[in-house]
């Protein structure tokens, strides 16, 4: 492994993490927003959200990405590979996040809301103080699950020219005709990224448990 290869892997790791973080940071609140629209049974928009979620859950990420990347410039929207990759990732993950948030919302006990209303809490306050803390806790394991899946689908983004960890490994393998060593390095790089994410989940869960015990 030459210093150049190590630099290529390091750059690939930065790209993988940056794209994943961007996808998660956009997809998480968008998913929550979509779930709230459906939960609140907003007329028309609620139906459109259901349609959006159905389409996106039915579309493979790589297909969505190619469509965005090649079709958007045709309708006058120039898009570079990294923007297309982030857009496709966040669209895809927001649909799945929406359903995770919605599951928690559907399971949310209505009597708590009625109690909050009876003491005159506004809708915004009810959501922030009563609903969000509880659904966030209930959704956390499923959301982290979706995030770890998102990190591991990032190699398909390479199809539009994004160089992530896996593509860096492919390039090194193609140059040396020895594909195995770079793939082993790639796997070794994904493991700590996922481990970091899961550790974050544990930390949040432990903090919650501590707060509850206090």
């Amino acid at each position, binding site marked *: 492994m*030459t210093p150049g290869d190590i*630099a290529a892997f390091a750059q690939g790791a930065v790209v993988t993490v940056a794209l994943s973080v961007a996808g998660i940071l956009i997809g998480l609140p968008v998913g929550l927003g979509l779930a709230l629209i459906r939960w609140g049974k907003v007329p028309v928009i609620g139906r459109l959200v259901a349609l959006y979620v159905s389409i996106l859950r039915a579309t493979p990420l790589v297909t969505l990405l190619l469509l965005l990347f*090649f*079709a958007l410039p045709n309708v006058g929207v120039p898009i570079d*590979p990294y923007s297309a990759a982030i857009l496709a990732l966040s669209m895809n993950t927001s649909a799945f996040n929406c359903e995770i948030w919605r599951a928690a919302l559907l399971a949310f006990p209505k009597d708590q809301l009625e109690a909050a209303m009876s003491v005159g809490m506004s809708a915004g306050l009810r959501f922030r103080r009563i609903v969000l803390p509880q659904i966030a806790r209930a959704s956390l394991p499923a959301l982290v699950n979706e995030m770890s899946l998102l990190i591991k689908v990032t190699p398909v983004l390479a199809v539009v020219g994004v160089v992530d960890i896996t593509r860096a490994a*492919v390039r090194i*393998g*193609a*140059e040396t005709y020895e*594909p195995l060593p770079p793939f082993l390095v790639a796997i070794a790089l994904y493991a700590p990224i996922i481990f970091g994410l899961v550790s974050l989940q544990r930390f949040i869960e432990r903090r919650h448990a501590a707060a509850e015990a206090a």
Partner: protein
Amino acid sequence: MTSRFSRRRALGLLAAPLAVPLFSHAASAATLEEIKKRGYMIVATEDDFRPFEFVKDGKPTGFDNELLEDLRKFAPFQVKQEIIPWTGLLAGVSTGKYDVALTAAIITKERKKSLDFTSPIADATHYYVKRKGDTSITSIKDLSGKTCGVQAGSALLGRLPELETMLKKDGGKLGKVVEYTSYPEAYQDLALKRVDYVVNTIINIKALVTEKPTVFEIGQAVSGKSYPAWAVAKDNKELLAFLNEFIAKEKANGRFAELQKKWFNESFPDLPVTFEPEF
């Protein structure tokens, strides 16, 4: 019932405007005049196609990338490069996302329907490569019934019927064909004995065998004449003429032969200026 129906209809309506531009792409490829006006041209190259284009220590290199350096000096406008995998490359050129596929795309009848090709840049006669020391294969007829590895969507896959004809002449038959997304995986599987031979162009196979002489061994030709060239969108005539002019200049000043010698270990002085594919 009605809700399901309307949802499906709405789905179709939503998808339609996205699909339409995909089928009306011919108009969107930039002409040479438009390229000159906007001041830049976008070329797409591959990243795992040694010796034509590959990435070494994070930098694009290989035969096409060195020619690209000369093209930058030759062109009266800026030349931007996008390095992408083969999968979306030709589609990107025919949709106008990239102006030129600056890669060794083999000229085929099928591709000529949506693309136009420059003068050939090398010889791409198809050869087979086998494992070093595999005594069960010594000539073409030994390939009968053996498992073949080839790249999916490649011109090489399209010309396997030629090999099949050769095999049938001796009463043999083409064995199972395994398709790979790219050649490095096919070579790996050849070394692992999952396939018995891999078909690729003479240049790619020579590069492989030079790099790994203890693992692989070059076989014989399994196709007739075949040439790779750069591609532009169909009917983009001025841009094609511009690129052909560049290639002719590089051939005349000896640079072409020099680069071929450097990357392919041989030069091809008798390349045709235009090539009409039979397959």
